């Protein structure tokens, strides 16, 4: 048992750090620190910088641009980029449809799609959730009817993150309405420019536009856009959702937010006293740090065991990472709310290319309440924390 990284791993970490220091554009980094969302252009720029270095799709097979890094190195890379802080790569291409295509797609599909994902030449979004389905994903109703060499797609998807920028969408569609729930589902790739697709924004409580509804009205999709076999889509979806767990605790990001909150509390004054000089505040922060350190160790334990497990079959204990990870992401944003105090109240509008002037108080305060509101989502999406507890109760505790 040894907590320390090997010399090789330390050298790797230093290499990643140095790269981030030299190549993460200052304006993007600044935006991330300030708690703003990166723009589409920011995402494209950063992905291409990484792809040029060969690090954009590090966990892919080498043939398609992967690095062959060990799970530990993957972890180090992810933590360091979150801590930088750099934007997280668009997961819909890199972590979701990419692995599905290189695992279940045909050669033509691999050649057609994978390089464009790695370089963010094509922006992907995810067409899984439907209205009213929630955590019961398999209850989906969107249909794809085969007509000659096309599928005709009708239905609606929702919670489609950043669909407003998307060139492509990967979809779960029902191809056999007679089959029972999990059967009769297929996995389709659809060009967002196809006639019959309408994207409607969903504004969230923080005032942001991250998610959308996507409507499909007799959308004609070439049959060659089917991934794998017809009616086997649920298997690919499970594979994809299993992959989604990697880094789900977002420990590096929470660490970065802790540093940020410390810095803000050191800058904000209550009369003459700095907030960070309040012992109660420091103890609350210390408790978040302790829980995060414990979770980091849990993450490492899961990671260390990962190499011995079948790919695509995640450790059910990784549900802990989702539960506690999301709680801590929320806790640090709630503590930031306490730091901003009355200055959390003013609302700052997002305008075309960035933000207008902060209406009152310190510049940094305007993103605090929106982040607090927005991060309520992390215990809801990707299987709510209640669902995660059901999973652990069943799969780990045998209840």
């Amino acid at each position, binding site marked *: 048992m040894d907590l320390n990284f090997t010399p090789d791993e330390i050298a790797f970490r230093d290499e990643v750090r140095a790269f981030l220091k030299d190549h993460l554009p200052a304006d993007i980094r600044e935006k991330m620190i300030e708690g703003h969302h990166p723009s589409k252009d920011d995402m494209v720029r950063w992905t291409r910088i990484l792809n040029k270095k060969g690090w954009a799709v590090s966990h892919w097979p080498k043939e398609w641009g992967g690095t062959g890094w060990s799970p530990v190195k993957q972890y180090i890379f992810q933590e360091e980029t979150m801590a930088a802080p750099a934007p997280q790569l668009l997961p819909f291409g890199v972590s979701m449809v990419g692995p599905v295509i290189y695992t279940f797609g045909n050669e033509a599909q691999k050649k057609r799609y994978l390089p464009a994902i790695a370089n963010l030449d094509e922006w992907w979004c995810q067409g899984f*959730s439907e209205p*009213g*389905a*929630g*955590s*019961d994903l398999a209850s989906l109703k969107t249909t794809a009817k085969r007509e000659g060499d096309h599928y005709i797609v009708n239905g609606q998807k*929702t*919670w489609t993150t950043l669909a407003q920028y998307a060139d492509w969408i990967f979809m779960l569609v029902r191809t056999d309405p007679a089959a029972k729930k999990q059967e009769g589902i297929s996995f389709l790739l659809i060009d967002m420019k196809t006639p019959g697709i309408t994207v409607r924004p*969903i*504004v*969230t*409580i923080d*005032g942001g536009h991250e998610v959308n509804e996507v409507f499909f009205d007799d959308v004609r999709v070439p049959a060659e856009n089917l991934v794998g076999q017809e009616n086997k889509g649920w298997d690919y979806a499970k594979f994809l959702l299993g992959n989604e767990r990697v880094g789900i605790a977002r420990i590096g990001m929470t660490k970065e937010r802790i540093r940020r909150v410390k810095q803000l509390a050191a800058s904000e*004054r*209550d*009369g*003459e006293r700095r907030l960070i000089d309040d012992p*109660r505040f420091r103890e609350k922060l210390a408790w978040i740090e302790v829980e995060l350190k414990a979770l980091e160790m849990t993450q490492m334990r899961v990671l260390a065991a990962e190499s011995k497990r079948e790919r695509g079959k995640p450790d059910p204990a990784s549900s802990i990472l989702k539960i506690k990870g999301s709680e801590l992401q*929320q806790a640090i944003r*709630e503590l930031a*709310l*306490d730091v*901003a*105090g*009355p*200055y*959390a*109240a*003013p*609302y*700052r509008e997002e305008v075309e290319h960035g933000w207008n002037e902060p*209406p*009152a*108080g310190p510049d940094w305060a305007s993103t605090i*309440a*929106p982040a*607090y*509101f927005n991060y*309520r*989502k992390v*215990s*809801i*999406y990707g299987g*709510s*924390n*209640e669902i995660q*507890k059901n999973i652990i109760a069943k799969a780990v505790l045998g209840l």
Partner: protein
Amino acid sequence: MDFELSEEQRMLKDSVDRLMADEYDFDQRKKHLKGPHGFSDGVWSQFAELGLLALPFSEADGGFGGGPIETMLVMESLGHGLSLEPYFASVVLCGGLLRHAGSPEQRAHWAPQIASGEKKFAFAHAERHSRYDIGHVETKAVAQDGGYVLNGEKSLVLNGDAADMLIVSARVSGGARDRDGIGLFIVDARAPGVTRRGYALQDDRRAAEITLHNVKVDAQHVLGAPGKAFDAIERTMGEAIVAACAEAVGCMDEMHKQTVEYLKTRKQFGVTIGSFQALQHRAVEMFVALEQARSITMYATMLAASDDAEERRRAISAAKAQVGRSIRFVGQQAIQLHGGVGMTHELKVGHYFKRATVIDMFGGDADYHLAKIADAGGLAS
């Protein structure tokens, strides 16, 4: 001991409830929000017609002599409706200052103008580093020609952009946080030297940053004895905190109701999600947090006008602490149990969550007030 409302109190409550029911469904509210000041002048007139704006003033001043209980009833109902009108700023805060610091002449002059809705007021008090300390005033008031000249910056002034009149706190003597040396001054919001920058808050109400540059105030517009205003500010802020607690109870009550309703109707895996025991228990825990907040708000309401300053302060801090913690729990769980749709701007529940969160940040959060109670040697008598 009596928790029953009087006949008059019940009528008051019913009238505000009806106003909110008639004028504040979700679509109407969106329309009100587009008004010139982010609220409805029409609804504001109805507030006046119903006598709500006259409520806390004595009958001698043309009011109805309502006390903290009446204010609680109105505020809870406004919380239910998510009202956008500046009742809290104009009537609760500035009405309170007028009552506690104003001379009979000042009250006779201004109370009817607040009561009729003719003049809307705002309390320009907080400053950049005052945080929750109500004695923090750096804005200067210098005596000149029998009146005063004000210079300084006021921040987070609720209703500051729509107000006709401002009540400004400014220091005639002493250091930034001295209790002594604070004065209150009535200033026309359009007076020379007053600059306002209005903005929306997270909960759709509005506030302003206000700069005072050589603003002249006549002697007759000095509220109370200059330098001795702290007590009036403290009593007013205390009453306002309790009123804000009542508004938060209204918000939480709605969040809880809407969540329970959602649990009863939303189906997943073929059953209503309200059949899942873990969610049932969560809804019960929300209910407990709500009822605890409601109870302590009643307690503080009944002590808000007490002459025992120590008892009053502790009760107010107790209420804000409990309500603050309940706000966090009830709000977060309301969103959680609604799942994805709870995160959307299109559902009302998120708007209650935001209003309650802004209230949590008004007048001190739970930690702040627990520390106050702790420093006072605890709550129990």
